[in-house]
């Protein structure tokens, strides 16, 4: 499946813990994150392990490496993963003679900002991680986010989706919901066999921002919980409509789906909700 991604800025600080330069690169990365809406901070560990989400960001973004010492771990690793169009900034080369930590950071940020401003943001097409099924999306931008609503699903006003696979239904959190709650680190799911009524709360998701209850969008008996979320709750953020699903349910009455919103209706609703949440004008 091919999807469109907005090319972003991927900042890879070396993260050298026991080296002064490492601390400078981290501080610079965090400052750049504040200044550039499209910036993401890469993880040396995730890039080393070629984690799919990390590799997608790495491949589709403008890459800027921040090396803290002469070993140049950041740029060496980035080169090793196949890119040769990197912007490399080295603490020893650029600010090695500067004494003050804050001044080092400021000067590095100034150079990085200048480099980044030379680059033109563009949109490219790339191959996404293969989902377990074909999913087509509606996409809209709001503020600095891109909101995706999967076509063919039904949505509740609580921002959970339902997918009817012809046998059972699968439910999960919408892209809007996962973006609002941010990084999920803990998921508490109920056991299969549990009967639920429409809009019951069955389990919870906890993120760095908030703990929310999982509100099922239709009645039925849970036949499977997504156990992969126990070890990898971040799937809810990485793949909300596919690998981050929550429950598979044997519905009591499939006609309940008619009470829910279709994708285009939900997109209108979700954009209004996003606008209200962030208090900014929707583009």
């Amino acid at each position, binding site marked *: 499946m091919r999807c469109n991604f907005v090319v972003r800025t991927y900042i890879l600080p070396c993260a050298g813990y026991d080296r002064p330069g490492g601390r400078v690169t981290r501080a610079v990365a965090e400052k750049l994150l504040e200044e550039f809406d499209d910036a993401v901070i890469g993880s*040396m560990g995730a890039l080393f392990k070629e984690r799919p989400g990390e590799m997608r960001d790495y491949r589709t973004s403008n890459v800027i490496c921040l090396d803290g010492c002469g070993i140049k771990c950041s740029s060496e690793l980035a080169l090793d993963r196949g890119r040769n169009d990197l912007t490399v900034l080295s603490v020893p080369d650029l600010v090695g003679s500067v004494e003050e930590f804050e001044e080092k950071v400021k000067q590095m940020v100034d150079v990085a900002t200048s480099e980044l401003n030379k680059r033109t943001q563009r949109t490219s097409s790339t191959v996404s991680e293969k989902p377990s099924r074909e999913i087509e999306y509606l996409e809209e931008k709001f503020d600095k986010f891109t909101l995706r609503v999967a076509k063919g699903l039904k949505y509740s006003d609580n921002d959970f989706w339902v997918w009817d696979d012809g046998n059972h239904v699968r439910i999960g959190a919408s892209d809007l919901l996962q973006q609002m709650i941010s990084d999920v680190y803990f998921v508490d799911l109920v056991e299969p066999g549990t009967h639920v009524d429409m809009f019951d709360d069955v389990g919870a998701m*906890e993120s760095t921002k908030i703990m929310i209850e999982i509100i099922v969008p239709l009645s039925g008996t849970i036949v499977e919980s997504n156990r992969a979320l126990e070890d990898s709750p971040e799937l809810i953020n990485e793949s909300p409509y596919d690998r981050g699903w929550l429950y598979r349910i044997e519905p009591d009455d499939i006609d309940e789906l008619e009470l829910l919103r279709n994708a285009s209706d939900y997109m209108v609703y979700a954009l209004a909700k996003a606008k209200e949440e962030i208090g900014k004008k929707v583009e």
Partner: protein
Amino acid sequence: MKKVVIPCSGIGKAFGAVAREATYLLSDGEYNDMFTTICLPLLMTDDKESKRIVMESDVYTIDGCPKKCASVLVKHVGGTPAMEIMTPKVLAENKEHKPETVLDIGSGGRLLADDIVNLILKHGGSTK
């Protein structure tokens, strides 16, 4: 020989910031005669000295997400962590110790870092 604490490289993530805060409390604070840290990326570049330290020392890894980069990299170079700490799981035990943001982990984040420090000290049998 000092024990080695290695946090994950989760920059831009609150749990990564907590992992580093806990590491610095041990390696730069009052326990710096007992603990040190080494640069995680050096393990990726197969740096001989870092690899030797990991192989010969008690290593404590502090990871911020289930990808467990710190633990995985220690094992990648042949080391065996004496203890693998998963920051979110420590938080799950004490949910009020929640970090705020990556730029300022806040009082909750600092308490979480203290929890991690205490786990390591307890495991290492060394409290001052």
